[in-house]
């Protein structure tokens, strides 16, 4: 069972549909008990970092906080995939409208794209191509140069150890990170056509 963490932000329909398309049964849940039983966990996210991390950390309708459940699963070895803002939350902190602590599962921090992609349109929105500085199983079905869909105004920096994919937008941008069982994609695999489906398929096999 794959659990998609529902903490009250974002549209989870596409992630669930794309997994269903791959023949994988995914459950959208905000129940920590279900999360702890999951074989894989996807942490989605759209919107602002501060708001999202606050919602993830607060007591939900099950009276428990999902942040500690996600942390416990990740530390226990459950494969975890953060998508877009969900990926950014895996890092130590973010500077989106103030400073906010992240989950700290990956080393690095999240900074405004405008600091590096000067003169370019922000958000970085659309299809950009991937380069792989190292080999990682998440991209075992994807070739260098394939395009994926991005929508973001902030990006992960100082995370050299975990970068497994980059794209070029005024400079090299962290497109994906991984450490052991923790993965994150800045782009949306569930919106990246066939390439995205192959990335999700690979995550289901790690």
């Amino acid at each position, binding site marked *: 069972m794959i659990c998609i963490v529902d903490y009250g932000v974002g*549209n989870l*329909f*596409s992630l669930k*549909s794309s997994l*269903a*398309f791959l023949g994988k049964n995914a459950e959208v849940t905000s129940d920590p008990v279900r999360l702890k039983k999951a074989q894989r966990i996807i942490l989605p996210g759209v919107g602002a970092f501060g708001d999202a991390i606050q919602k993830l950390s607060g007591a939900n309708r099950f009276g428990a906080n999902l942040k500690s459940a996600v942390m416990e699963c990740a530390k226990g070895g459950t494969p975890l995939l953060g998508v877009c803002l969900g990926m950014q939350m895996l890092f130590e902190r973010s500077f989106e409208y103030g400073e906010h602590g992240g989950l700290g599962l990956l080393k690095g921090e999240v900074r405004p794209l405008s600091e590096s992609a000067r003169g370019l349109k922000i*958000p970085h929105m659309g299809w950009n191509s991937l380069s792989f500085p190292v080999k990682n199983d998440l991209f075992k079905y994807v070739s260098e140069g394939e395009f994926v869909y991005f929508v973001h105004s902030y990006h992960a920096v100082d995370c050299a150890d975990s970068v497994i994919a980059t794209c070029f937008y005024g400079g090299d941008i962290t497109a994906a990170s991984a450490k052991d069982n923790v993965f994150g994609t800045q782009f949306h695999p569930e919106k*990246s056509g066939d390439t*995205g489906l192959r990335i999700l398929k690979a995550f289901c096999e790690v």
Partner: protein
Amino acid sequence: MLAKRIIPCLDVKDGRVVKGKNFTGLADVADPVALAARYSESGADELVFYDITASAEGRKLFADVLKRVAERIFIPLTVGGGVNDLDDFARVLNCGADKVSVNTGALKDPTLISRAAKKYGDQCVVLSADVKRVDGRFTVFAKGGRENTGRDAIEWIKFAERSGAGEIVLNSIDTDGVKGGFDIPMLAEVVAAVNIPVIASGGAGSVKHFVDLFNSVNVDAGLGASVFHYDQIKIKDLKAELSKAGVRVRS
């Protein structure tokens, strides 16, 4: 760097795709789900759905169409038509849309743009503007191009950007449906006025029109409807030609 996007647009009425010439004389084309799947497989970078029904019954059919599309098409989906308040945003986002395009609803209540951007993020809010030259001035029209608002188009689009719109679809009424090429002069003025992505709409009739578009003006995407629906242009062929002409596209 980002690829230039090719975006088929599907006008949906009572659950079917239609396309008019200069906004009148609609002719039924095809089943939206089948058409969307075909586009996705052939390399479309994004899809736009406009709900042009006015009735509650039509809205329900549209929601059903959208859900069925979102279940099997894994590229970004933008939805417009009849979006007048935040409830309309919720209605289409819950069916699987990624972005919502506002037009007449924003003209009636311009605060809709900022309220939606605050709630769903800038990336979610697309301003669609139907623009026509009136006495030599780019003027915004409402209600599917039928009503002259008297508003200056460039001012309106700049206002939308300030209010948090993440993207502009510029539809030139002067070139729409005529298939004589995109409205390059109009697009150039808009691109110079804003720093958010601009999608060119209205006038696509041939592969050359898209090549001219991307070679003449820094738009992010080109949108077309009937040229794609009737297979006058195959998206795969279009992308191959663009690539040959030095335009970066997703292969």
